């Protein structure tokens, strides 16, 4: 059974949590005791209907303020697939939580309030979805009940959104636009009679039919080493296994490989998946490799196939999204983590800060505040074996860590 990871996006109060709650409700994924609890909580808030946003807004502070602060992970199945939904906050202050949710998803649901049309957060979130190369974006024009289910309103928003996508073209992205009412359940699991002018499928059908692109396996083989398994017991005296999760591509027994950054070469002797031996393993699998020669391999190293080496980089450009309340300081040392390798690094210059609404590139700025996105030049103390994000997404990301606070302060996407 395949798993589809979906994240919500869009401005505050556009109805993201209500949409997810309603989807669970309509697919009968909520047990009676949870429904009863929501009914009681709704009553306490003085609402005379079931406030389904309470299904995901589980923190005390969220319920008090009626907003989402951090991502809630929600699970449900249909006969077609298993869904993992990251219901993300819309408030600009919590953009880093939205990025957290979006970074793992294969589909982004961007909500728009039909009365308001495209607003600043729509631009920002679309930009982020685009930056992350999320393969599927579904634009949900919500609250259609408040605009009389009007086709004109929907078409106007659709036109605006199409204009936006033309300004930010992305050939990898499949886009769908759908009119909805999360509150009343229109076009969620069944086609709405109140919008018979809409010819597409209801949202759930769209989600069930989205192709999960298995492109990762067609990319060159990349595996960051997590851990070296050395049992040192009698039965496995000489066993030395290199454990990790394949980030892209496939590997076969007998393949010639290169260890990066050292450049040493060897051959794959055996591939283990836990206690079983495999001839071949593929992207996303957690495996253990043994090799023919006695070469030095440890955590932080990469194994790639011979002839498919990445360029080793110490100076490069990248888009970064700043995630911390302490602004970026250029020429301060941060730790950069790529795969399992952690190296010292500095942002040597900010090329430009990206205005996500106007799409203008603002130059001559020397700091970056929380939630801002910029193109920067970095240098690292040791080389990293990364690919450009565009050609190999799983091997084209990194995070920046603050040595003093230990916080994750930025996420980066390596440029070509």
């Amino acid at each position, binding site marked *: *059974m*395949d*798993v589809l990871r979906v994240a919500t996006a869009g401005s505050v109060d556009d109805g993201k949590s209500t949409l997810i709650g309603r989807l669970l409700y309509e697919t009968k994924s909520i*047990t*009676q*005791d949870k429904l009863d609890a929501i009914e*009681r*909580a709704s009553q306490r808030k003085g609402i005379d209907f079931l406030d389904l946003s309470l*299904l*995901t807004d*589980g*923190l*005390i*502070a969220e319920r008090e303020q009626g907003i989402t*602060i*951090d*991502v*809630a*992970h*929600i*699970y449900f*199945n*249909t*006969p*077609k697939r298993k869904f993992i939904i990251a219901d993300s906050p819309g408030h600009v202050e919590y953009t*880093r*939580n939205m*990025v*957290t949710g979006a*970074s*793992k998803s294969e589909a982004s649901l961007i909500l728009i309030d039909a009365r308001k049309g495209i607003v600043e957060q729509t631009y920002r979130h679309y930009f982020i979805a685009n930056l992350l190369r999320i393969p599927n974006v579904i634009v949900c024009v919500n609250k259609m009940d408040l605009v009389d289910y009007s086709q004109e309103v929907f078409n106007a928003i659709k036109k605006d959104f199409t204009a936006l996508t033309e300004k930010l073209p992305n050939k990898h992205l499949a886009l769908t636009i759908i009119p909805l009412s999360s509150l009343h359940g229109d076009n969620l699991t069944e086609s709405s009679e109140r919008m018979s002018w809409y010819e597409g499928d209801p949202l759930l059908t769209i989600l069930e039919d989205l192709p999960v692109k298995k492109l990762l396996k067609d990319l060159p083989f990349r595996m960051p080493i*997590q*851990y070296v*398994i*050395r*049992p040192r017991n009698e*039965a496995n005296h000489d*066993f030395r296994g290199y*454990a*990790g*999760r394949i*980030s892209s591509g496939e590997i076969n027994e007998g393949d010639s490989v290169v260890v990066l950054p050292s450049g040493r070469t060897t051959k794959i002797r055996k591939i*283990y998946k*836990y*206690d079983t031996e495999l001839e071949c393993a593929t992207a*996303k*699998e*957690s495996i*253990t490799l043994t090799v023919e020669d006695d070469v030095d391999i440890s*955590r932080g190293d990469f194994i790639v196939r011979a002839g498919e080496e990445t360029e080793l980089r110490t100076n490069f450009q990248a888009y970064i999204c700043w995630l911390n309340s302490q602004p970026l300081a250029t020429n301060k040392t941060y730790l950069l*983590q790529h795969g*399992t390798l952690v190296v010292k690094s500095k942002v040597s210059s900010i090329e430009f800060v990206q205005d996500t609404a106007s799409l203008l590139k603002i130059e001559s700025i020397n700091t970056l505040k929380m939630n801002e996105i910029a193109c920067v030049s970095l240098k690292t103390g040791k080389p990293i074996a990364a690919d450009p994000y565009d050609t190999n997404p*799983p091997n084209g*990301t990194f*995070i920046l*860590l603050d040595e003093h606070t*230990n*916080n*994750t302060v930025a*996420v980066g996407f390596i440029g070509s």
Partner: protein
Amino acid sequence: MKEYLREFPRELEDEAVYIIREAASQFERPAILFSGGKDSITLVRLAQKAFYPGKVPFPLVHIDTGHNFIETIEFRDWLVSQTGMELVVGHVQDDINAKRATEETGKFSSRNTLQTTTLLRTIEEYNLDACLGGARRDEEKARAKERIFSVRDDFGQWDAKNQRPELFDYLNGRIKPGENVRVFPISNWTELDVWNYIREEKLEIPSIYFSHTREVIDRDGVLWPYSDFIYKEPSEVVVHRQVRFRTVGDMSCTAALASDASTVDQIINEIIDATVSERGSRLDDKRSEAAMETRKVIGYF
């Protein structure tokens, strides 16, 4: 019927093994919090897989309320002897004796909240910098908000409004001395995923998960397992019922479920048809709307 609910998505196992290996690499003294329940049993199996053919590089830590089901303790000891893993037990009774914790009294008293004191003391005593737990996001609405690496301060507190961003597969376990991290490898599994895994992997589980005859007190339809640890009104009667447990906490906070399910397949059928959620039988969650969040904030897992 509903065959699609009976299949375990293997990518969840790959993800869990990745997380467990990160924990082993990033921390100096990690441990598995072992409750004797199905989720921690699953965790032990995943850890064995993660380090095969090597040994699991961390001990099991059991926080013993003293009010456990005998079957759970027997199972725990059996598992320890089977796996050769080290076992550390933190006794809630020790904290009560030392006056670090005060026993609750009355009809609904439980040692569940006291566990946190003992957990934090054990973490300190053994200098643990990470605890791997079997908590899942689908269990409860506050748990749905958890990160996979959840950083806790000197007092074990969870700052829900200020969690570290967790991007792609990156797990940042860097901490200062005194802080520790709760690691949740099966965050993205559901109750059914766990049961399907138990079936596919043929894992042994404590007998109380299966239907058996037990003495219970029926309080407004909630079946409380009768034991020395439970307060009984003179007017209440103890009856025999055919029951099983859906989650295993300690005896004072886990209600029984009337059930005839005596195989894993039958349990899976029962869960597919259930109209009550897993933690619907957890009396510790029913104390208030935000009972779980409140406990997590002060150091629960």
